[in-house]
């Protein structure tokens, strides 16, 4: 097996950071995928026909999770290298591998990052914000940044080493253990934010109308549960203004 050089790993890593830079509605991350793969292609024996075939292979619809994508990129480069070295890679396998692993990583990433880690981290920084720890907000995001960059770096090497065996990694039950833990941590942090906010409402000086404070807080928490519609936050602000107007007239 041909090893991945440090130079190629750096190049793939840096390019993979921008894989969503050309996101489009038709084929999503296809241009970003090809842009990443080009750093490998540029380092190999060049031939116009071969370049055309490889461009064609990577220009179809493609969508995956950006934080986990490097597992796939590493695996793809490994398969391409194997094919270059004359090892048997059945026709169509690279495309199937790209699509199936890409979809699996997208689904895993949705659960782990978008529904697990992101709400948890957001609630954590909101908690620090409520406590007045302004600089800590940036520190928490900084720690996440370093962590996710490390994950991307390691994933590239791991993906390359595993090749097709990435599939086994996806079946690892620890992913789901971590997703469960992340979500529970997010729920507890959401409760902590609510608890601290309610404590601040209770503590606040009596110069304002206390009833308005309490009714507003409880109505605010209850509204999304009553509506049961996932409105964008921007529309919730407008809805909150109408609610505030109603409260102003009512109290």
């Amino acid at each position, binding site marked *: 097996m041909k090893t991945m050089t440090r130079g190629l790993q750096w190049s793939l890593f840096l390019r993979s950071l921008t894989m969503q830079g050309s996101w*489009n509605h038709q084929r999503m991350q296809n241009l970003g995928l090809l842009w990443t793969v080009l750093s490998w292609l540029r380092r190999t024996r060049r031939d116009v026909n071969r370049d055309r075939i490889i461009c064609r292979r990577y220009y179809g619809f493609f969508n995956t999770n950006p934080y986990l994508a490097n597992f796939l990129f590493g695996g793809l480069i490994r398969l391409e290298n194997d094919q270059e070295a004359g090892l048997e890679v059945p026709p169509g396998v690279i495309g199937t591998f790209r699509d199936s692993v890409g979809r699996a990583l997208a689904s895993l990433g949705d659960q782990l990052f978008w529904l697990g880690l992101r709400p948890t981290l957001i609630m954590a920084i909101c908690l620090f914000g409520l406590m007045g720890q302004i600089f800590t907000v940036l520190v928490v995001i900084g720690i996440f940044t370093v962590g996710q960059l490390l994950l991307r770096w390691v994933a590239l090497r791991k993906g390359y080493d595993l090749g097709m065996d990435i599939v086994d990694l996806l079946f690892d039950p620890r992913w789901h253990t971590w997703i469960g833990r992340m979500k529970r941590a997010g729920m507890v942090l959401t409760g902590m934010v609510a608890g601290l906010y309610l404590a601040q409402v209770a503590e606040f000086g009596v110069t304002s109308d206390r009833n308005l404070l309490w009714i507003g807080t409880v109505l605010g928490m209850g509204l999304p549960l009553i509506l049961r519609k996932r409105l964008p936050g921007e529309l919730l602000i407008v809805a909150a203004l109408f609610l505030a107007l109603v409260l102003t007239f009512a109290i």
Partner: protein
Amino acid sequence: MALWVPVALVSDPTLSSLLVLGLLAGILALDDTALAQTWFGQPLPAAVLTGYLCGDPLTGLAVGLPLQLVLAGNLPIGQTFTGDSTSATIAAVAGAILGGRHLPPVLVGNSEGTWQLLGWVILGAGLLSLLGHLLIQGERRANGIWMLEGLRSLRDGRLGRIERLHIRCLLTTFLRGFSSGILFILLMIRVWMPLFPHLPPTLQTALGTLPLLLPGLGVGTMIERYGLKSSWPWVAAGMICTFLVAHYVV
């Protein structure tokens, strides 16, 4: 309040300060989707960064925290709405500070007198984010057109075209963030903030309630996201413990 306040890099709405803030907006617009996705572009970190840059991180916190909570449910899955909360947040914080206002967070000290203006600034940020949504959609449509241009490389094998197209998309995102950031700041300073004294008193009173409603709305949105049935024991445990500690111990 634990604060580390640096010397303000920008303190008045001059061309150079607008350029610095536009640069921040451009970089964070890239970070939002196109580059690395570090989440520094989320409303609270973006607001705090803008606050530090303008020398008033407390105003950044006051604007960013309710925005972050109410926008916490905006996750990039299962919805087509994107919004441009990053540029909108930067504009709201910079517009308030460069317009000579200091906005402490709600429920802190003697902040009550500024709640109405804070509500107005937050409402402005929400509307600007809606406006930014249109710009982002335009940018993505342009990416689609350029992506189709790349199909020519599938015929002639010219890799340079693919690289140029991708870099063009990245530059477009930066320029979108940079220009919308500056435009939104100018809108805040020249139009939105001067409008506030002319608002009807009833609306001003309602705006004073707005920052108080948003944290609750954010928490409610998250509970709804997690599912009330499965999340309530964890949420309740966190809420009760924190309330008791904050109210009776601290």
